[in-house]
């Protein structure tokens, strides 16, 4: 009896989480998938017709936006790594006793609503806003210079908004490194660069890996930044899905687009995991 309970314990532990996922994730997912194969409209109602064409239609109409989303996602993720790694490194190794303070300061803006922050960026970056206005008035910038409504603005906004999802896992990974291991590498004739490349970097890669997954996925499907900062020429797929669903009531098309995006992201993540997530890579990096 006791043994049986022991064997069941792990399953009992995942039960609450498992149920939650089943009800609020799997059920809607199956439902949405079924919707993605329907035909019809909001007035006459939708009917299940196994209409796979919704997918090809989606690709034909919005393929460029899908690609752009992945591209912006990639750019923002790379920018996040570039900004987050040095910051996390500095806090973890040079932060001393004020580590948590620095970390808190870095995360402070994220206590403000996501939408509000993005709107604030729009105010700052408008052509006559507090940043560009004075520069333009003094003739330091050409009058046709814009930041807003550009891909650059969207990627910047995405980077800014998702930075903590990159900082935190990298910080945790760096923080966990035993400093004596780094000293051991110096002791074994490694220069500072070599110690970083052979020891610190490989040991922090799992953090970078987690950070990439945690930023790339939400960034590629984000719909706020492109809408607020990007204007009509830099639309991302999240924005399209939202519009198709809520404004045009094209439920089937919106669902098909959602699944296409999800499939692309999953393929991307798996390819990335295969390439980077194995121990061989860590070992190779250490040589």
């Amino acid at each position, binding site marked *: 009896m006791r043994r049986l309970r022991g064997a069941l314990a792990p399953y009992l532990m995942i039960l609450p989480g498992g149920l939650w996922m089943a009800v609020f994730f799997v059920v809607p997912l199956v439902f949405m998938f079924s919707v993605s194969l329907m035909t019809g409209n909001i007035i006459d109602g939708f009917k299940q017709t196994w209409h796979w064409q919704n997918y090809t239609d989606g690709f034909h109409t919005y393929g460029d936006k899908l690609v752009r989303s992945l591209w912006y996602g990639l750019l923002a993720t790379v920018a996040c790594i570039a900004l987050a790694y040095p910051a996390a490194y500095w806090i973890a190794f040079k932060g001393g006793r004020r580590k948590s303070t620095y970390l808190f300061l870095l995360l402070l803006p994220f206590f403000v609503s996501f939408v509000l922050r993005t709107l604030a960026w729009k105010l700052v970056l408008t052509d006559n806003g507090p940043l560009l206005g004075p520069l333009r008035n003094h003739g330091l910038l050409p009058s046709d210079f814009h930041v807003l409504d550009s891909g650059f603005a969207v990627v910047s906004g995405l980077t800014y908004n998702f930075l903590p999802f990159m900082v935190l896992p990298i910080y945790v990974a760096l923080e966990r490194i035993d400093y004596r*291991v780094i000293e051991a590498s110096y002791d*074994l004739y490694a*220069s500072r660069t070599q110690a970083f490349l052979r020891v610190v970097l490989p040991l922090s890669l799992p953090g970078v890996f987690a950070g990439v997954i945690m930023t790339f996925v939400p960034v590629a499907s984000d719909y706020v930044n492109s809408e607020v900062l990007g204007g009509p020429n830099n639309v991302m797929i999240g924005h399209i899905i939202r519009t198709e669903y809520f404004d045009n009531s094209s439920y089937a098309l919106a669902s098909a687009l959602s699944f296409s995006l999800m499939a692309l992201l999953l393929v991307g993540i798996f390819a990335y995991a295969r390439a980077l997530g194995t*121990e061989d890579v860590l070992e190779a990096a250490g040589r």
Partner: protein
Amino acid sequence: MTETQHAPLRDDPGRAEDAVPAIELAGVRKEYHAYGETVAAVQGVDLAIAQGEFFSLLGPSGCGKTTTMRMVAGFEEPTAGEVYLLGESVTGVPANRRDVNMVFQSYALFPHMSVFENVAFGLRRKRTPKAEITERVTEMLRIVDLTGRERRRPSELSGGQQQRVALARALVNRPRALLLDEPLGALDLKLRQAMQVELKRIQREVGITFVYVTHDQGEALTMSDRIAVMNDGLVEQLGTPREIYERPASKFVAGFIGTSNLLAGDAVESGGGTSVLKHGDGGRIEVGREFATGDKVELTVRPEKMQITADEPGDGLCRVHGKVSEVVYLGTSTNYNVTTDGGADVVVFVQNAMNAEDVARRGDTVWLSWEPQHSYVIGSAE
């Protein structure tokens, strides 16, 4: 003229080379500043460690052993004083350019690398040819008895195996000296003793200077050529295990190394380089130093040097009288706790020979005696 001056050196250059200490510390101090306070972890240490020597730093927790090693390895710069490796000052030379390697208390193996890569790390940094790396790593893994485990990760090894990887990783570089910071601290007693033997064997095999940090006096006594006993950032005594054990230079050393009996007596006669101390009724202790009559003198005697008898011992022996307070049977030996008439609590070890009866029981009054050369004066107060 100049010729003759340099002649002795030229005659025997090998000897002259050997005479240069592998490691020398001259007036080395290290202060840390934390929370607005200054902590002097090491307060002026002078040491010269010969090439090929097995040298131990022994002392209680927090006495500055690790700090001393870190200054030799180059992780820490002394606040004052100078460190020399083979006669050359290494002030300002970073750890990666010092020809000494460290075995960390916690091993500090690279968790993301195989055993082979861990051991090869130093050679790769020195751009040793690939074939030579393979050869030297393989040979070193054979010496530490880890052949066949090359592809394992450190986390897949036992504590003792990890310890040997740490050792191999340092030794494979053939450094001038190896610094070992309590390398056996994390092991259980059995493994520890096996590794002590192993370490000695390896040291003989490779012939490298070992500086060994420990707070285990038994370990230091059995393994070392020489020991420096540290206390509170200072070296209290430096000498061979026998010197340190039999002739402790201070109360601290006497108490820290093995069990030691502390006795005090008043000088009653002196002359001819010796003094006689009185300790309780009938207690007469001879010491090899002259004191003024009335001086209070402290000395130590090792428990195994004392004899316990019911009758008064013969002339020429030091003696004190007392009462047995406890008898502890320990198998190969028996410990007698005796309170002397002079008010000191002492322990006597008696080997249990064949068929021997207990020489005394609890409550018996007994004489303790020993040869005068086993009395060591550690202090006096007027």
